[in-house]
């Protein structure tokens, strides 16, 4: 691409960020610039002009690859990357955007860790991630570099030590201090260039459901357990009718098969503790949870609970529920019981948990995670499955039996799932039935909300502005927009220079205008991200972290200069004195 092209591109980006032209228009004009920017599979944002490889300075940083999924799959991410790439170019980085399908990208990033330079990525929120431990430990601890979640290869012994310490620190305030320090390290080292915490958008009929009974949970939104047991009907309609776009794969207490599936298992099966709307665990099927010491927990079971088939819930069932995943029957729940050394009944209403080591997140990621399952139902099933040599993930109960606030009624595949309130439950729901409709067409779901076919829009992936307009112009609808625990970011591979240098990563963060991404691409339905602990987790999120909000090319170049970098005659970045380029452009 020539210099004029570069100028035209910069001008376009300026027009876009100042709001003069729309997102669509930006993409159209960029495409018109020669189509070279992004639309063909792997085309350079700016191919080096003129100079042949032979004449190049050996210190010149190679052309770097940046993997991203196609625009059709992840429109916001794709557009955010285009914007970021233009800004990175301005600090002298030569980029090649490689558009590839998710399978290929995932294969490259997870399984070929030496081969790529940068990738656009996201971490999604899940209920167990309401405790910061999973992200804090798994994403950046050096033990997960080779295999596991540390795919960027971040290695910092100081971070490791603190990440281990927060794990065993049972004092919440002290643990918070440790987490603040960890977040400061990450903010300084920038192993991820954080973009945003996206918002999740919901709406419901406030003519059908009393708005005071709808609960917004931190990092989750209004589609949560507490809403479902507390939602109070105002009139004749006592069924909550919700939509989902995802296909429900299983209703199985021993298999984590998908986000939607998890909502159902949470309602049918009880847990000793539940994550409350503030994001902290509190006793639920347990009447009391007492820490005897750092590794011993005594749980007292709530009296009078019954399974949906009428049998009483016993301490034996509880012990069975925590022992079952420890074997080979439930690989997905195995990590949640891994910290447990032993579970033993104490009398006929208490259970004692012995942990292998102190584990601060045990309540969230253990007691509030594992489903209580009836021994009399599952013991014979396990025997059967063992004989066939398969695990419990492969098994679907005809009529699932739990002890939760909702009972299973019917599942018509690809159509709907019906649950009904369990009046015998100690927190019996106020609604009569909970009906989840399978609606892949998001516009139809929105139309269904206005026409009354559904009364709780529990999943909405369309344009948030459109949802807002619809809610504003239709009587009796309420919209709720919530920050989630997940985040989107640009991940540089620290195994490959120049990304092994924190100064360069800081310069990248300084150059990229996250605020432009947030306002222009996410239309403000997202919050600026500055940490791997989401702002949704108010208690744990460190205040006053540098957020690198707006693009500052001057400052970025300054950082590079101070770290010894310089630029060649064509404006491309040169490594500091004494360092030369040894790698080829990465990517599949």
């Amino acid at each position: 691409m020539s210099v004029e092209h570069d100028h035209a591109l910069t001008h376009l980006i300026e027009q876009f960020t100042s709001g003069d032209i729309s997102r669509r228009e930006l993409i159209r004009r960029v495409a018109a610039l020669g189509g070279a920017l992004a639309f063909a599979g792997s085309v350079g944002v700016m191919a080096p002009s003129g100079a042949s490889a032979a004449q190049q300075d050996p210190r010149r940083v190679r052309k770097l690859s940046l993997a991203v999924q196609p625009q059709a799959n992840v429109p916001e991410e794709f557009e955010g990357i285009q914007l970021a790439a233009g800004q990175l170019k301005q600090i002298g980085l030569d980029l090649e955007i490689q558009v590839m399908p998710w399978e290929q990208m995932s294969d490259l990033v997870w399984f070929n860790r030496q081969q790529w330079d940068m990738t656009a990525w996201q971490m999604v929120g899940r209920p167990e991630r309401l405790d910061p431990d999973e992200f804090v430990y798994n994403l950046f601890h050096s033990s997960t570099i080779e295999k596991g979640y540390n795919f960027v290869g971040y290695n910092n012994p100081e971070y490791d030590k603190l990440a281990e310490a927060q794990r065993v620190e049972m004092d919440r305030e002290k643990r918070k201090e440790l987490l603040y320090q960890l977040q400061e390290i990450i903010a300084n080292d920038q192993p991820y260039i954080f973009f945003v915490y996206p918002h999740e958008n919901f709406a419901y009929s406030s003519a059908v459901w009393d708005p005071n009974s709808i609960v917004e949970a931190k990092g989750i939104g209004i589609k949560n357990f507490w809403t479902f047991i507390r939602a109070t009907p105002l009139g004749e309609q006592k069924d909550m009718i919700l939509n989902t776009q995802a296909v429900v794969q299983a209703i199985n207490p021993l298999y984590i098969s998908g986000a939607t599936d998890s909502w159902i298992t949470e309602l049918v099966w009880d847990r000793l503790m539940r994550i409350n709307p503030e994001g902290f665990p509190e006793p639920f099927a347990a009447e009391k949870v007492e820490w005897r010491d750092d590794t011993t927990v005594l749980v007292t079971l709530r009296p009078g609970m019954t399974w949906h088939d009428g049998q009483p819930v016993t301490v034996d069932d509880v012990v069975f529920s925590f022992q079952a995943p420890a074997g080979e029957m439930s690989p997905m729940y195995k990590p949640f019981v891994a910290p447990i050394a032993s579970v033993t009944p104490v009398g006929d209403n208490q259970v004692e948990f012995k942990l292998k080591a102190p584990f601060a997140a045990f309540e969230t990621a253990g007691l509030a995670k594992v489903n209580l399952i009836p021994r009399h139902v599952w013991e014979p099933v396990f025997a059967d499955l063992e004989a066939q040599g398969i695990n419990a993930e492969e098994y679907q109960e005809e009529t699932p039996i739990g002890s939760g606030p909702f009972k299973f009624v019917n599942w018509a595949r690809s159509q709907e799932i019906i649950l009904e309130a369990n009046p015998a439950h100690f927190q019996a729901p106020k609604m009569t039935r909970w009906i989840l409709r399978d609606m892949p067409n998001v516009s139809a779901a929105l139309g269904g909300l206005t026409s009354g076919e559904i009364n709780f829009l529990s999943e909405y992936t369309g344009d948030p502005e459109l949802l807002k307009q619809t809610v504003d112009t239709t009587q009796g609808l309420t919209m709720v927009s919530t920050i989630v625990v997940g985040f989107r970011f640009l991940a540089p591979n620290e195994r490959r220079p120049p990304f092994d240098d924190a100064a360069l990563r800081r310069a990248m963060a300084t150059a990229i205008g996250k605020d432009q991404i947030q306002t222009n691409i996410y239309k403000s339905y997202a919050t600026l991200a500055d940490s791997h602990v989401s702002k949704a987790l108010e208690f744990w999120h460190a205040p006053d972290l540098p957020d690198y909000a707006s693009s500052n090319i001057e400052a970025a170049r300054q950082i590079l200069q101070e770290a010894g970098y310089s630029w060649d005659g064509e404006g491309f970045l040169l490594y500091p004195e004494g360092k030369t380029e040894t790698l080829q452009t990465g990517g599949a």
Partner: protein
Amino acid sequence: MLRARLIYLLGRLAQMVGVLWVIVTILFLIFRLMPGNPLTAYIDPTFTAEQEEAVKRQFGLDKPLYTQYALYLKNVATGNLGRSFFQKEPVLDVLMDVFPNTLLLTVTSLVAAYAFGVVGGAFLAWRRGTKVEGAGILLALMTRAAPEFFLGMLVLSFFSFDLGWFPSSGVSDPGVIYDSIVEQLLSADFWHHLALPALTMAIYLQGLPLLLMRSNMLEVLDEDFVTMARMKGLPEWRIMLAHAARNALLPIVTALTVGIGYAVGGNVVVENVFSWPGIGRVLVRAVQAKDYPLAQGAFLLIAVVIVSMNFLADVFYSALDPRVSATKQEVG
């Protein structure tokens, strides 16, 4: 004559098996030659090498390609399409769960489209050269050319969201449970839900029979026997219906049979717009979720329907028009 027809049909049957074999082979290769590992969606990055190997073994992906191919052919021939990665059920069961819905939608909309198309086509032929004919052809071409999702959204927005006459999604009202397919078919609720998706498909499908019928009629109306009928002084409507239309119908029958095949595959869009639980939905989701066994199975099922309907069309044709099987050269 009968023998010639039999030989012809056997030949067609052999061809059909050949075509299916090619399709099966392509499906096998497509999913293995795609960039990335087919198990990426299945293998968690935290898996150990042993776990990964175990998963590969479980799906037979540790064997050489030709062994996998032989196994795959054998399984397909015996009706074993494997197990869905995520739904943990045999692929055939997952597909058969929703196949009746697809079939009902397809047949209803085809019958409606062809009934309308045949009558409309005959009418336009009868009104040849008038403004009515010009407008009719234009309308037919427009509806035929409009993308189905666009048409679907228009229908949805008008009849469901604006007028509120019909529900927007699914096969039944929330919370309604049918014990059997018969009970479902006999309920007004089901037909109420079927109306909009069937209408959308019918609007899309009617163009072909309409235009085909019109041109056939025009040809037939020039034939000697029609002139003969006119000379006999028969009333015009009788000439149209009893003499011309009857003869013009032949190619429509073929188009209908082939149409069933294509409509099954073409349901993908309509099923998604109207949240209709059919093969098309399963296919789209299987592809999105990277559930390869299920996607492969859905593609195969659609291919089987299309190929067998083509075969059936040949059978009909040879029965209706003996010239087809008399000499091979005439078989297009």
